[in-house]
């Protein structure tokens, strides 16, 4: 089968064995892996947007299910849309939409073009950095529901964000930071320009008037840098001090303020040194690091987005016998609403009518459906898999279980306890050393010459603070963050780089990290006269009626062209129904076998016993016997084994903590070469294992992608989330692997270690220079001009050393590297 040799045309994933599915593209049949991808690829090329496949630089997100137009029915109703969207001039409406699956600039081009082709669309702006699109349309010509359908058709699942203020806030925050950065950048360049003649004037003699003039001009330029560009640091320091703690902002602010005030004083009195060049450069580099970090954090998304993805925005309310679509926020306690099969609950409630099965994996991590008879509680954000349910609302808005989790995460994120702790220790260490040093200098000078005690102390503080402390660390972190971003690793909290360099263990949640996290039909074996495609089509027709995860795997792979009738669900065993007049059963082997006579020929190709451990075999049969067997599996990522081995070579043993079945976990562990693994763990168990490791002194990296991993990720020293993982997992992550390539992980660890080494080198250099130069200068052995040149050169050395990190050199080329690792391990 040639199709199996090539990956899916749309998403680039391997095509299940035995599946023959083609998309008709530009007169050629291209292989695709599922009907979702087929529909999307044909729609894209059919709309004349085939260029997308030429321009994209990453494969698209797997579509899985074919688009379901009825999902957006609620958005066709103008009165509802009016409440969800903002009014624009001339009767137009606008809304911001979060696009799931937007991965590169070509995707945003695709979204832009596809929407612009619709009549009635007035403007579209897609931002690939934040995965958001702002739509403005004329409601007289086109409905919001149609636009959302178009987006789904091109493979980008839209999540409308009603009146989202957070996006606006984030945008303003980014713009303001950029302005501050520009002021600091322009300012530092100007001041440096004035500093050069000052240094040479010291050496060769300079007209005192000109010297005064240069110093005053430097001061003038530095004022906006120190006051405007440096403002966020003072704010951060003030917040920290008010809560009686010390953050990194405190010594930074002390450094800036002291150096600046001292320089202003010296410039005005005309005596002593000025440090305007150091102050402005310091603010610029620190601001640059913070800016890069902030952009990554915004990309990772806020908790509000996470909620938007999980909870639906509309609900079907039943009031006095009338069913209508309303905004989810309009639901009040005591209201009744309907949830159809496949829909998500808009609020917490109690089942009144219907015999439901609900997927609560996002809350509990348990992937099996949970039975919900009348009277059972259901929760906002969970998935109704089976029969339609009528639900009475018991909690809305901020009181649902989901909001509770989100609020918890939001608070944890704001407090950042783990990160703050690490930064505090560093800040306290530096602050302590510097203050002790300054106190000694003051005491000594007080006895020698009281008049010079204050200027000398100030000189110590000024010289040590900006150069040693500030440039050394932020330049290295900024360079490392930028280098990682180019590789598709987003650093949401730069403090994580330090923690990562010291990491000793890696904890994996299996599903979605080592594996792809999607159950799919991996293999089709047809018996007798039936073709695999026919078997798949029948299976899909039957499973269409089920919203079980297994059913969704079939919906993705099989043709949903036929409809099954008389479908009966046999819980835990399978489905029975009629397709094209043929009575079929799908499910466990014994269940299917019972339909035929007991002596039916069993398939000769029996699945091997070890296969059954992770991969489930699903059988299809009719009254003549077995027709086909389908192997369902959650495929291992191809690079998982390499990644585990690479981490082990760096001295980081891996361990699996999973909520899954022991057999499945053991098999995946064996295939990746992981020795330690634990199965059937609750989120609390995972956290307990993490705490136990940490208590024994380990620095733990946790990799997860589910909502049930959020506690684990938050407790870990370094949290890594996958680019396509749940938004809640991403908000608690320090690092996000955007490309979902596990190979990036060992590389990131190596880069983190190199970063730490560069920081240590920089600090060592700066401290050594200061220690050597300060006493000599104070004793009069070094002329001021030489000290000034040395100081600038010292800063340049530090910056250049840091910039080495941004060149993507492979650490393996460095011969001393393995030796260092062994030394550290010993």
């Amino acid at each position, binding site marked *: 089968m040639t199709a199996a040799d*090539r*990956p899916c*045309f*749309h998403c*680039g994933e391997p095509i299940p064995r035995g599946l023959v599915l083609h998309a008709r*593209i*530009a*007169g*050629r049949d*291209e292989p695709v892996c599922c009907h979702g991808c087929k529909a999307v690829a044909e729609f894209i*090329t059919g709309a*004349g947007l*085939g*260029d997308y*496949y*030429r*321009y*994209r*630089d*990453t*494969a698209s997100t797997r579509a899985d299910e074919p688009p379901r137009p009825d999902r957006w029915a609620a958005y066709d109703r103008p009165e509802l849309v009016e409440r969800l969207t903002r009014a624009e001039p001339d009767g137009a409406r606008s809304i911001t939409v979060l696009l799931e699956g937007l991965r*590169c*600039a*070509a995707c*945003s*081009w695709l979204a*832009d*073009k596809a929407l612009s082709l619709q009549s009635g669309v007035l403007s579209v*702006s*897609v*931002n*690939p*950095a934040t995965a958001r699109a702002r739509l403005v349309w004329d409601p007289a010509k086109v409905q919001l529901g149609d636009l959302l359908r178009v987006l789904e058709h091109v493979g980008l699942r839209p999540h409308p964000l009603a009146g989202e203020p957070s996006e606006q806030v984030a*945008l303003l925050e*980014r*713009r303001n930071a*950029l*302005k501050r950065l*520009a*002021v600091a950048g*322009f300012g530092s360049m*100007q001041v440096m320009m*004035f500093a050069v003649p000052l240094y040479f004037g010291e050496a060769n003699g300079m*007209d005192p008037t*000109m010297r005064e*003039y240069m110093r005053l*001009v430097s001061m*003038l*330029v530095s004022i906006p840098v120190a006051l405007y560009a440096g403002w966020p640091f003072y704010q951060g320091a003030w917040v920290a001090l008010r809560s009686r703690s010390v953050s990194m902002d405190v010594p930074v602010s002390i450094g800036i303020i002291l150096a600046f005030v001292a320089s202003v004083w010296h410039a005005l009195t005309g005596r002593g040194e000025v440090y305007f060049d150091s102050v402005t450069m310091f603010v610029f580099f620190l601001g640059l690091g913070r800016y890069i970090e902030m952009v990554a954090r915004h990309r990772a998304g806020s908790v509000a987005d996470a909620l938007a993805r999980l909870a639906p925005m509309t609900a079907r309310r039943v009031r006095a016998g009338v069913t209508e679509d309303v905004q989810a926020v309009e639901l009040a306690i005591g209201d009744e609403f309907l949830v159809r099969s496949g829909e998500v609950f808009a609020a917490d409630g109690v089942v009144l009518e219907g015999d439901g099965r609900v997927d609560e994996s996002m809350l509990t991590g348990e992937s099996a459906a949970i039975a919900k008879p009348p009277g059972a509680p259901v929760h906002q954000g969970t998935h109704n898999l089976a029969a339609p349910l009528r639900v009475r609302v018991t909690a809305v808005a901020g009181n649902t279980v989901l909001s509770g989790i989100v609020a918890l995460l939001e608070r944890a994120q704001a407090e950042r306890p783990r990160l703050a702790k690490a930064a505090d220790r560093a800040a306290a260490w530096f602050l302590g050393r510097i203050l002790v040093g300054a106190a000694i200098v003051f005491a000594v000078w007080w006895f020698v010459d009281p008049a010079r005690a204050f200027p000398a102390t100030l000189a110590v503080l000024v010289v040590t603070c900006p150069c040693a402390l500030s440039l050394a660390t932020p330049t290295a972190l900024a360079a490392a963050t930028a280098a990682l971003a180019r590789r598709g690793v987003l650093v949401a909290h730069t403090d994580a780089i330090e923690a990562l360099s010291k990491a000793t263990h890696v904890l994996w949640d299996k599903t979605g990290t080592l594996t792809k996290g999607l159950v799919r039909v991996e293999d089709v074996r047809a018996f007798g006269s039936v073709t695999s495609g026919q078997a798949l089509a029948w299976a899909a027709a039957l499973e269409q009626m089920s919203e079980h995860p297994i059913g969704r795997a079939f919906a993705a792979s099989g043709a949903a062209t036929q409809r099954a009738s008389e479908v009966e669900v046999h819980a835990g065993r399978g489905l029975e129904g009629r397709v094209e007049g043929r009575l079929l059963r799908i499910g466990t082997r014994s269940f299917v076998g019972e339909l035929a006579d007991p002596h039916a020929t069993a398939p000769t190709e029996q699945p091997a016993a070890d296969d059954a451990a992770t991969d489930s075999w699903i059988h299809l049969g009719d009254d003549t016997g077995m027709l086909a067997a389908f192997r369902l599996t959650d495929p291992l990522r191809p690079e998982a084994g390499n990644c585990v081995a690479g981490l082990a070579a760096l001295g980081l043993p891996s361990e699996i903590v999973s909520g899954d079945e022991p057999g499945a976990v053991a098999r995946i562990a064996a295939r990746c070469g992981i020795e330690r693994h634990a199965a059937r763990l609750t989120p609390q168990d995972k956290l307990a294992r993490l705490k136990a490791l940490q208590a024994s002194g380990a620095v733990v990296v946790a990799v997860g992608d589910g909502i049930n991993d959020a506690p684990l990720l938050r407790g870990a020293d370094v949290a890594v989330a996958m680019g396509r993982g749940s938004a809640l997992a991403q908000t608690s992550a320090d690092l996000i692997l955007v490309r979902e390539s596990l190979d990036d992980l060992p590389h990131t660890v190596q880069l983190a270690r190199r970063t730490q080494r560069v920081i240590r080198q920089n600090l060592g250099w700066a401290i050594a220079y200061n220690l050597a130069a300060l006493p000599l200068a104070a004793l009069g052995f070094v002329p001021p001009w030489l000290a000034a040149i040395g100081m600038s050169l010292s800063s340049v050395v530090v910056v250049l050393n840091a910039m080495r990190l941004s060149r993507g050199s492979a650490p393996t080329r460095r011969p001393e590297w393995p030796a260092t690792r062994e030394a550290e391990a010993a």
Partner: protein
Amino acid sequence: MEILFIMIPLGLVLVGLGLWAFFWATGSGQFDDLDSPGWSVLDDDRKPAPGDQQPPDEPR
């Protein structure tokens, strides 16, 4: 060297102009998205001929 008393303020005025332009550009959203405008060059109104749509054999 007295010329510096004029040149430096002039230079500062230029810097101020540059900053003003940068602030204006930031405020009008020029830096909000640095990736996708590059693609608009490739995007012409002409309906691509069927041959143009021929995608590469292997998606990159």
